[in-house]
């Protein structure tokens, strides 16, 4: 699980062009969206869907499902391990 999370962080940085961040800057339970966390927005949510598809073969058809899944690295990793 911790490997998955580390990979995820690197993939998030690449997919979202967060060039100023390193995986160490992203806490497992920190909110990814909104002003409290990384400040990501609805375009990033679509990029997460691309990330899940291209790296894990998981397809999300309805972007509104993403809200729960993309809360943090923890929730993302949970979802991936259950759906892969």
């Amino acid at each position: 699980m911790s490997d998955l999370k580390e990979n995820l962080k690197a993939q998030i940085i690449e997919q979202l062009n967060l060039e100023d961040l390193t995986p160490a800057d992203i806490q497992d339970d920190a909110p990814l969206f909104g002003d409290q966390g990384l400040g990501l927005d609805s375009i990033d949510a679509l990029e997460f869907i691309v990330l899940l598809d291209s790296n894990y073969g998981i397809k999300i058809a309805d972007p509104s499902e993403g809200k729960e899944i993309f809360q943090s690295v923890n929730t993302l990793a949970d979802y991936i391990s259950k759906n892969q």
Partner: protein
Amino acid sequence: MRIYVTGYGVISSIGENVEESLLALRSEKTGIKQGQKTYTERFKVGEISWTNEELVQRFQLTQDASRTAILGMIAAKEAFRGHSLNPGIRTGLISGTSVGGMDVSEIAYKDFLNGESDDLSIYRNHPSGSTSEQIAKELGIDEYVNTISTACSSAANSIMLGARMLLSGQLDRVVVGGTDGLSQFTISGFRSLMIFDDEWCRPFDETRKGLNLGEGAGYIVLETEETIKKSGKEPIAILSGWSNASDAYHQTASSPEGFGATLSMKGALAVAGLNPGDIDYINAHGTATPNNDLSESHGIKTVFGSAVPPFSSTKAYTGHTLAASGGIEAVFGILALNRGILLPNLNFKQAIEETGLVPVKNYSEGNTIKHILSNSFGFGGNNSTIILSKV
């Protein structure tokens, strides 16, 4: 000084001229169906069935060009029919487009990517500005040519700029509107945004999931009072109001409260010197995306309060024709003014819970309609409203 409309032309999936469009509107017949091209076959789209070559032949166009330019030529020619060029009437063309000649340049570019030789001359069609120059050439217009590219509000903004240039005395007459042909680029683009509805789109419905794309073009001819004396043309409507404002909320999403929409509707009413109560019908932007329709509904409620006039989106007829939509819907608006038509919002069943707004459900003629407000909202929070009035 009044700005008169003296001509109109339209092509979309519901008809290839004004007359055919009226028949389709009257019979509540949508132009949206399962796509026929390799890149549209999996979607419901408002596609025009003819190929580019067929269109050039059918409409006796003098130029082979991109689909966007060809559709533009067809509708602009219809709008300009019966008008003649005359050195005493300075005539311009302002045309909106979002993709320009992408439908042909993307094919050449694909060859290039695949390491095959691409026909470089095809790229001459690519610039959006070239699209308008080709349309202007087809009409013989060379006094002034300009292209507005503000995504889905492009045609409305072209209409607005045309009116302002007439008022300032820079032109005497101007053909204004917009055109967009479907391309793989656009289909894939909106697909990537995940805002397609795989079923028929349902603007302003609680269960709406997204939009259906369409293609087409719509143009109107604007003249000043002075020009009409020279041209002898009979006005078919008055362009009485226009406004553009920026939502400044998000690159693609509209603000939840419809701030930019409210600004543009209020701005157009102010230019027209009208009160909200004077508006008899609203042709809404109504793309059927969850975000647009909710935001626009809030904007409409803010401007019109508890007395929201009859309103509908005609995008369930044509699909969202992007940069052309404001031109196509201006033509529909003129039809509505002159025949007292309330246009139905096809596929509507259930009001959005949060707003309770119910659009026009059935087609009817003979209503008293003096003023129509038409909204067009684009990416980047570009919000535009025009008001058309009965002569």
